[in-house]
């Protein structure tokens, strides 16, 4: 009797050792290869003065002091600051309306506000061309055509809106009703209550949103390439240097410059967070907005206006993809969807994108969730855990464009045995997972931290192997979070272009890259069609997963309800 138990125990023990220690080392290896080394490769490339590559210290000095660079940098800063200054207040009002007022139809508005996440950043640009270009539907409203500064700003505003919104939504969702009661009992006006309660609690999120929008804008080239005209920005220059002129060193130098604002805002944000700490106590009471007709009417008007703009832009993109020959033949047809006959990659690109998004979502969510689990829930390997935690926060501070450049430099290195992956689907998947790692992992960590800290200890005391416990208890409980990660990764992979543009090969061309190529070749209708297709795919998959998540929740309602004894 004793023997079989001992054998069973030792088998479980070995299984766990492989699961925990092996899992962590595997995860570390992946992070080093997928995040750390490519980043180091950028610096290496930027400072090595190989002939014809435009890198090295001399080239850096020349680049940084050139009038052209100053012009590009000035443009980039002007655009990014303008976009952030426009988006953050709008998103704040929108988030405030959703979280702190009683306007009707919140689910609809929230759904609409997420539309820009479902399509590549070129789509708003394309829609703007059809709306405000020289042949645009609403051309008469503007004195000049859209190409240039205002085109980029408008496109980026639409593209970055949901990103800012999500940060502000979660900041405004945490409100302690007791503070408002205290404020109103002291006779504070709503404006005063906002200044003394709401604003201090959300200030930091506003800063974070501002930084995020700034970084997203300064590193995006999807919008500038479509509506920038001759108004050029740094991100586009990096893209042109690497793809157009194959000057990797120059690309690396610009990549480093683009890394600065992201690193800066990441550092300041982390510093602020540490200084202020968490102002919300666990005993905070959920804030219930009181009815106010005037306030709700005002906010509803704002929300309606923003949603109308979003609908107009996305509706225009879809509509233009169906028009036979803009602007001379407005009859509808599916001609633009016949991708096989046009440049860009055709249906292969779309199929590749589906494959890439599926692999990214499936492999990524399994890897990220398991990695987060091992980091959060296992004892031992303290230094390893620390290294993992730090590395997994790096992608947050690295724009996709820079990460993509790093991949080019690292995987295209002479003598790198991993070179076989260059241009392969596997590398695109790895890069996309790495790019979106931090957000997904934060979702996983939040979900895991809500679980009883003693679950694992209880399982171990019952002689159950940890991997079995993980599959049998942890995963089922965290299924909604897991589906959320799945959706996030799928949609991101479907729409990403910033890193992928440097990594695809003719076999692995992606839909979002095809959009760029078609637009480049002047096939704006085809670009609109492919963007719309991406939009529909991301949207449908999101709805499907939301539905699956609701179903899973309903089926598990028996055990998810709150215990009467607790």
């Amino acid at each position, binding site marked *: 009797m004793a023997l079989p138990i001992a054998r069973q125990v030792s088998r479980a023990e070995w299984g766990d050792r492989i*699961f925990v220690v092996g*899992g962590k080392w*595997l995860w570390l290896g992946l992070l080093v290869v997928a995040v750390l080394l490519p980043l180091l490769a950028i610096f290496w490339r930027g400072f090595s003065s190989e002939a*014809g590559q435009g890198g090295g210290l001399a080239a850096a000095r020349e680049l940084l002091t050139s*009038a*052209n660079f100053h*012009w*590009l940098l000035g443009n980039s800063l002007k655009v990014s600051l303008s976009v952030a200054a426009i988006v953050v207040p709008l998103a704040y009002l929108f988030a405030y309306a959703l979280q702190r007022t009683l306007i009707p139809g919140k689910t609809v508005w929230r759904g609409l506000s997420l539309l820009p996440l479902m399509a590549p950043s070129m789509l708003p640009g394309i829609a703007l*061309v059809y709306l405000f*270009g*020289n*042949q645009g539907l609403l051309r008469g409203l503007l004195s000049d*055509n859209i*190409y240039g500064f205002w085109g980029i700003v408008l496109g980026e505003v639409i593209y970055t809106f949901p990103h800012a919104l999500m940060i502000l939504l979660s900041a405004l969702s945490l409100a302690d009703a007791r503070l408002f009661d205290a404020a109103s009992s002291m006779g504070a006006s709503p404006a005063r209550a906002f200044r003394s309660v709401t604003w201090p609690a959300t200030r930091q999120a506003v800063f974070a949103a501002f930084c995020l929008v700034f970084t997203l804008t300064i590193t995006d080239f999807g919008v500038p390439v479509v509506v920038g*005209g*001759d*108004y*050029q920005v740094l991100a586009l220059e990096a893209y*042109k240097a690497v*793809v*157009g*002129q*194959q000057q*990797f060193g120059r690309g690396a130098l610009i990549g480093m410059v683009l890394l600065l604002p992201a690193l800066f805002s990441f550092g300041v944000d982390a510093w602020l967070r540490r200084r202020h700490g968490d102002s919300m106590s666990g005993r905070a009471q959920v804030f219930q907005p009181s009815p106010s007709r005037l306030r709700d009417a005002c906010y509803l008007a704002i929300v309606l206006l923003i949603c109308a703009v979003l609908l107009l832009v996305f509706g225009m993109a879809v509509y233009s993809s169906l028009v036979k*020959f*803009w*602007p*001379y*033949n407005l009859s509808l047809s599916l001609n633009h969807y016949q991708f*096989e*006959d*046009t*440049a*860009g990659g055709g249906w292969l690109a779309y199929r590749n994108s589906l494959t890439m998004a599926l*692999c990214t979502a*499936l*492999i990524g969510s*399994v*890897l990220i969730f*398991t990695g987060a689990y091992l980091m959060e829930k296992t004892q031992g390997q303290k230094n390893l855990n620390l290294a993992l935690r730090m590395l997994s926060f790096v992608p947050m501070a690295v724009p996709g464009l820079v990460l993509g450049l790093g991949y080019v430099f690292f995987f295209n290195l*002479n003598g790198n045995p991993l070179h*076989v*992956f260059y241009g*392969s*689907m*596997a590398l695109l*998947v790895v890069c996309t997972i790495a790019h979106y790692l931090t957000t997904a992992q934060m979702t996983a960590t939040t979900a895991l931290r809500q679980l009883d800290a003693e679950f694992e200890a209880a399982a171990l005391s019952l002689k159950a192997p940890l*991997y079995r416990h*993980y599959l049998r208890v942890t995963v089922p409980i965290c299924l909604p979070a897991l589906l959320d990660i799945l959706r996030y990764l799928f949609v991101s992979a479907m729409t990403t272009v910033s890193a992928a543009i440097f990594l695809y*090969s*003719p*076999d692995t061309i992606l839909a979002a890259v095809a959009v760029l190529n078609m637009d*480049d*070749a*002047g*096939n*704006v209708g085809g670009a609109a069609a492919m963007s719309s297709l991406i939009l529909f795919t991301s949207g449908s998959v999101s709805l499907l997963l939301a539905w699956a998540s609701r179903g899973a929740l309903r089926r598990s309602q028996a055990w998810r309800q709150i215990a009467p004894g607790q």
Partner: protein
Amino acid sequence: MFKPLALVAAVLTAFSLNAFAKTELTVYTALEAEQLKTYKKAFEQANPDIEIKWVRDSTGIITAKLLAEKDRPQADVVWGLAASSLAILDQQGMLDNYAPKDLDKIGKNYRDAANPPAWVGMDVWAATICFNTVEAQKQGLTKPVSWQDLTKPEYKGKIVMPNPASSGTGFLDVSAWLQTFGEKQGWQYMDDLHQNIGQYVHSGSKPCKLAASGEFPIGISFEYPAVQLKRQGAPLDIILPKEGLGWEIEATSVIKGSSHADAARKLADFSASPAAMELYKENFAVLAQPGIAKPQTELPADYEQRLIKNDFVWASRNRDSILAEWRKRYDGKSEKVAGQ
């Protein structure tokens, strides 16, 4: 954990190892995407054991890519790239001199002078102005007939042209203006033209497409998209400026050190064959093999006579310095930089 791992491994293997029995030939090209399907089908029908893998981009990008990969060439063969670009690769010793089977049928102006030649021509494409008649009427624009006309103030902001750094068409325009007007007047002309340019774009066909949709009424482009768009019903006039048309030879060349040299040469044979010329003639009015081309109804009969005398050696030798000068003058179209 183990199952996902196995899955990852399986997926990685599946993606990275494409085991095909056929020879897979990596072909770099700057041809218009619409043409690729027919060409590929015809070649693979003639050579069933070979499969073409296209890498397509605009002329400047393909040239830069080939140069960047000089030490470790990824391409086996180039099918459809500007001869001036191939000449640069030849200067770098990257091309495999090879005489395709039907070399004797190729006109002597349409192949590399060396024997065996480094590159062999396919067809000729030439500069064209696409002019949107509907927009012209709406905006009261007169129809330009010469390159010089394009500098008239009435066209301010109405003209699009390709960026010569990335587009072969853009480069042939610049090189032709410098050759026909002389270097000094050539740059002066471009300075004046610059004042009227609404946008520089990355591909040679985009200006014509933008003209066709009326986004910008005048596009400096080449005849292939002009003809195609007109056939689709775009309200375009195809203008061949009276000073003469800059032009380029689209050519084919085998890359030195290709691991599929035999297959690559088969493609070079095919590209110079009468069968291929039959395909080219659907798209181009002037072919490397004389006597096969048919006149295109959208183009005048004396089209070939309107081409300028083009010095490809001069163009390819000076390509870098011309592009550097152009970038300095016009890239980053802004008052601040343009003034320098």
